[in-house]
């Protein structure tokens, strides 16, 4: 699997580490147990397009949001994670 890093170009996935689903919204500290359970444990786990956080740890060290098809491993889009936060 190869991931086109927006800063470094097309790189093998051995240069990256993966964290998991990108769309999880961390609840407020005082949120109830159900909200924290949902955030920590429950996942959509789709068969198809999946947005996830990858870290180009052996490259530019940028965090990236990679949208990938979990059925084929085809990379659909890559954006820097800080653009997502802005």
């Amino acid at each position: 699997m190869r991931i086109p890093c927006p800063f470094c170009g097309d790189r093998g996935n051995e240069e990256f580490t993966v964290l998991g689903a990108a769309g999880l919204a961390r609840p407020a500290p005082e949120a109830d147990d159900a909200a924290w359970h949902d955030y920590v444990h429950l996942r959509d786990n789709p068969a198809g397009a999946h947005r996830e956080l990858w870290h180009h740890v052996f490259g530019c060290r940028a965090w990236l949001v990679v949208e990938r098809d979990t059925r084929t491993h085809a990379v659909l889009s890559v954006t820097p994670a800080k653009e997502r936060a802005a």
Partner: protein
Amino acid sequence: MHYSVFSLLRNALSGNRSWTPAWRDPEPKPAYDTVIVGGGGHGLATAYYLAKEHGITDVAVVEKGYIGSGNVGRNTTIIRSNYLLPANTPFYEKSLQLWEGLEQDINYNAMVSQRGVLNLCHSDAQRDAYARRGNAMQLAGVDAELLDAAQVRAMVPGLDMDNARFPVKGGLLQRRGGTVRHDAVAWGYARAADRRGVDILQNTEVTGILVEGGRVTGVETTRGTIRAKRVGLAAAGNSSRVAAMAGLRLPIESHVLQAFVSEAVKPLIHTVVTFGAGHFYVSQSDKGGLVFGGDIDGYNSYAQRGSLPVVEDVMESAVALFPAFSRLRYLRQWGGIMDMSMDGSPIIDRTPVDGLFLNCGWCYGGFKATPASGWCFAHTIATGAPHALNAGFRLDRFATGRVVDEKGAGAQPNLH
């Protein structure tokens, strides 16, 4: 047809013309008492034990592919019950006991081989942890032996015992552990369930779960609607997708786990060896190929194939432990889709939908659990409540904080 040396002789002498199919290929009935979604090892074992232990024979097993096409044929065939936690040890020991009697029970040669499972330790702290686990096993009535380095050296030649970074200090051995031929497990359970009246519906994919007034009433399939009073989901790898049809969101991610077979060589390893300083385990099949595996790839996948960095990682571990393996060529490799639960332990439980039951989250360890998983899931479906053996594997344990963290490595890739 009952299999025995006499049936073998009779068929050999008559030119092998009168063997009959091992199970029927029936048309789906419009309704069953119980429908099991997923014709893998766990689903077939569930159907078998529903019929055998609970007298429920009006059962259909609905399988989207063919029997043996999924994870039951995509593992490394290891069986063991060397667990620490009280939620795990009795359950896996039940499984090992069922393995020990399986071939007579289902009248099928599954090549159950109790060649032992040896976990290597590489530091004093790890040896202490293994001693603790061995003691916990013995307290639960499970066999365990702590070996010192000399005993390991005598038992497994070829190990890099005196490696500067990870010297082998000893190991925890379970002699009753071993390997089983995984295809034969699928075929044997399918045939045994079929002989007790269970309908096995291959190439029948579930496309929907029917729920009326909070109660399950059947499933939609590619071969029409099948009504059922009870539905059991045993679709590990695709559990999230199947459960979503009933509106459930699970504490599970699907990940790919790769396994490998080398070219065949003369007898080299007569037990199952696990590396304690990396994730690597190896045994030798009866054909001579070394069967080995390691970590999940770490990213969500339904693709049943992995990528090269993990292949390299597994090979590095193999050569670190057995330097002679560097001369071997690997022959074939495959990937299976694991239900990675958030605490690394399985779920066998009721669901919030009446009549709908869930068996999922097997992570790395589904194959060894096949008989006990089926046995406990059958009990849970038949009685409506978990058995004491699967009482720790509840769906709500994540919300209540009662997680079963044997290794604590679930779906989170950086914990592996």
